[in-house]
């Protein structure tokens, strides 16, 4: 197993290197250090201030190794990321590591309930729909799932803010307060939107697994032995469906830390999703590369964890 993990880690290093390189190439294909400086300093600053800013932030060096092998931005970019030296934000010179720590709490306070509720509601609902397969409940369920998947999350957000916060006035339209006594008031609506927006895809995915599992021989045998349908679903189908569920679940866990871009931005939650949105809007390369780097690392970690969980859940799976 150790050899397997090491091999996956080696693959992961290649993936992360590739992602970092691709980000660098794509970013500087559409923008340049002058744009980064102007976004940070404003349009009205004189050219010498822009030059000084670039020198201060290392953007005055050549971009590529073939321009200057010893001192170029691409190598500096890799070097900084590999040392986990995230540096300061281009937009305001604050420490990125501080901002990551500050933003993780608000992000997790949104994504963890969203994730748990998604599972708690999605899996039983999928079981119910699968239980009633080929009845009107199943067909209606699938139709609703497809409809829910077809709608952009942006529409859910704007619609919910208009209907639930503006017309019905149940929750604030946006805002955040980490105080435990009021946090529910601010998180209720984004969580509701996130659950509803994700519900279609999740229920449909789990339903497919359950239906597929329900048609296997061992389930037919259990039925032939007289086992009740609820027991079959719970004790046989659900237990054997854990592997694909785990794939979905474990892969999602690392991304709880990176937050939700649109939900945080529209609901005013100062998490890591908002940080990423700001970085994209503000040409903030140092923040963006940090978020992409962390995302890539978490993705690789999630994949390795998923494989390990396979082995734990299913004794037939051996990691070699």
């Amino acid at each position: 197993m150790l050899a397997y993990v090491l091999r996956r880690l080696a693959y992961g290093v290649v993936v992360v290197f590739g992602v970092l390189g691709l980000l660098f190439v794509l970013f500087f294909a559409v923008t340049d250090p002058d744009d980064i400086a102007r976004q940070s300093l404003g349009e009205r600053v004189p050219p010498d201030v822009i030059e000084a800013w670039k020198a201060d932030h290392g953007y005055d060096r050549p971009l590529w190794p073939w321009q200057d092998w010893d001192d170029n931005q691409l190598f500096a970019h890799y070097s900084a990321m590999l040392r986990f030296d995230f540096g300061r934000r281009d937009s305001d010179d604050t420490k990125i590591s501080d901002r990551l720590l500050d933003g993780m709490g608000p992000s997790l306070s949104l994504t963890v309930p969203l994730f748990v509720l998604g599972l708690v509601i999605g899996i039983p609902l999928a079981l119910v729909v699968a239980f009633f397969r080929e009845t009107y409940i199943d067909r209606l369920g699938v139709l609703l799932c497809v409809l829910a998947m077809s709608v952009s999350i942006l529409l859910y957000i704007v619609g919910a803010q208009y209907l639930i916060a503006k017309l019905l006035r149940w929750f604030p339209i946006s805002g955040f307060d980490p105080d435990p006594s009021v946090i529910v008031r601010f998180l209720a609506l984004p969580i509701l939107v996130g659950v509803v927006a994700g519900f279609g895809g999740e229920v449909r995915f789990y339903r497919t697994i359950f239906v597929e599992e329900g048609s296997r021989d061992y389930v037919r045998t259990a039925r032939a032995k007289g086992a009740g349908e609820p027991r079959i679903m719970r004790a046989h189908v659900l237990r054997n469906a854990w592997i694909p569920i785990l794939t979905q679940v474990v892969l999602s866990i690392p991304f709880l830390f990176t937050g939700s871009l649109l939900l945080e931005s529209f609901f005013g939650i100062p998490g890591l999703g908002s940080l990423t949105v700001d970085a994209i809007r503000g040409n903030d390369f140092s923040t963006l590369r940090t978020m992409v780097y962390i995302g890539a690392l978490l993705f690789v970690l999630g994949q390795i964890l998923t494989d390990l969980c396979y082995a734990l859940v299913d004794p037939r799976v051996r990691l070699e």
Partner: protein
Amino acid sequence: MRRSMRSEPTLRHRLVAVGCLALASASCGNNPYPDSEGSKKVLYTSFVDAPRSLDPAVAYTTSAHAITGNVYDTLLEYHYLKRPFELIPGLAKSIPEPEAIAGGRVRYRFDLRPDLVFAEDESFGLGGEGRRTRAIESQDFAFQLMRIADPAVNSPVYEPFSSIEGFGGFRERLGALRAEEEGFAGLPIREQYQRAGGVAGIRTPDVSRLEVILAEPYPQLLYWFAMPFTTPVPFEAVEYWNGEGDRERFADHPVGSGPYVVASYDKEAKIVLEANPNWYGVQHPEWKAPGATYPSEGEAGDAEAGRLDPQTVGQPLPFLERVEFIRERESIPRFNKFLQGYYDASGIAKESFDSVVLEDRISPEMAARGIELAKTVRPAVYYIGFNMDDPVVGASATASGRGLRQAMSLAIDSREYARLFQNGRGVPAEGPLPPGLFGYDADYQNPYRHVDLERARLLLVEAGYRGGVDPATGEPLRLTFDTSDTSPQGRLRFQWFVNQWRKLGIDVEIDATNYNQFQEKVRNGAYQIFMWGWVADYPDPENFLFLLTTPMARSVSGGPNTANFQNAEFDALFEAMETADNGPERAATIAAMRELLERERPWIELFHPEDYTLFHDWLKNVKPAGISNPTMKYRDIDAGRRGEQREAWNEPVLWPAGVLAVLFVAALVPGVRTYFRERQ
């Protein structure tokens, strides 16, 4: 035993149900603020982009000045209501008069008010344990001016202060010492400035007098003393808040002397200002200082707009206990929260503009909710420029080029442009000067800034381009419109200009490149037509008209005169106007310059941008300035009315929750029935 076992889960269920109900009731309602805040004089407003820096030597954006303008007090400031803008004393006792001294130099003497103290801050502990504040001295102003000269601070406003005697020399000496002397850069900042010899033109003969000596006259310098750049800064704060360890950077930890202090600074979520008990207006209301008392006079319309309420006039400032700036990245939630009464003032979301403003006035629906509209023309101008060095559209083409520029100017309808692309927000520009500035003439009509295609065609004939045809090729005259705006919206805007000129038969091609490539073209003089804007730092005609002087020409000095307009007569008029006092003579000079520009047409003046601000009727004394000015201290809130309106507008509608529950149960019943039927 069994009974008790059964009753236990029931009790737990009940407790859970009660908990859920409590949670639901606690969380139900759309008020994002604590209920206890309702009766307080707290102004709630929003911001989109976080300020990069609150260092007053560096902060140069609107979002940053919204904070620094209220936290850092200045020697002078602008009258809150009067237009054209008028300087009034702030921390200075009076506005200094320029004194001519030997060598063509000019001296300004600022006498400070007595008993000025900084807001409390732990950095003052550097001066003695337990110290939380100290008196403001003239050295604190000198220190801040030297910070502007400091190359390490990287202040964007070094240039305007470079006319101070010895300013550039100090900058060079400081830079050289840091580069050459080991350990110098590690010395306390005040010691570094002392070792660099200070600035000869900045003198502090005693703790309450600051003298500024200019190497040459620059009367506009006084305006810079009404901006946060020149606020007094305690050296202790700069040294203490150095970003090392757990300490914040000075850029994120302002220590000022203004009417407000930053009580909490989370630029990702919320910035809170609270009234500063150390402010001179609070400490000495008996002085009735102009910057600490609500004004008794303004411009026409202020009284009708309720800005000269007898109960407010002459009252000591500030009125608000606290100001909360809440970060809202998206316009739709921001605007909806304003409509719910949770923001006291707002801009207008693009998507909602037509429902809010009808025929340039607030819509009846909004007016019925007590929402008011304030319009402010920014001291700015947007224009299309011609490169006067170009052989076709420029000065070397003499009468032909002039006629072409005049004809092209006559084809552009600024009002239509503003209607199409600015929601009508913008005053059509007749000349470079915007309303509210000395020299602006509301009655002036530029004969080349009103659409007249017939006259334009005649001018083209005179210029040698009959029907827009270039006689050299026999094809429509081909020109290039250079821009750094590559967005689809930008393309639409530039295409509109092209379409207008096509009516004259001229074929203009849009050449959109990225900013750097555009700058490269500008550097090389390889451009013909461009669109640009200028936002003034201070409300003086000099800050606009200098844009067209020869020394500022891009091809001469790399300056902001991108049109490369070089006209000896204009330069002479500018020189006479630059240092003149506002009066009939200066007005006549400005009119002569305007006429020259009218004829030569280096620019097609488009519009002066207008800001539309919405505010609820419980927010009092709103008069947007359009320039950096501490406005919060003048504003007031009728918290009682706000509370009533919020309550009336935001009563939760709960019946749909019941309907949803019934629908949910109804949807489940057939399924449950099927389940039991199958089991049987």
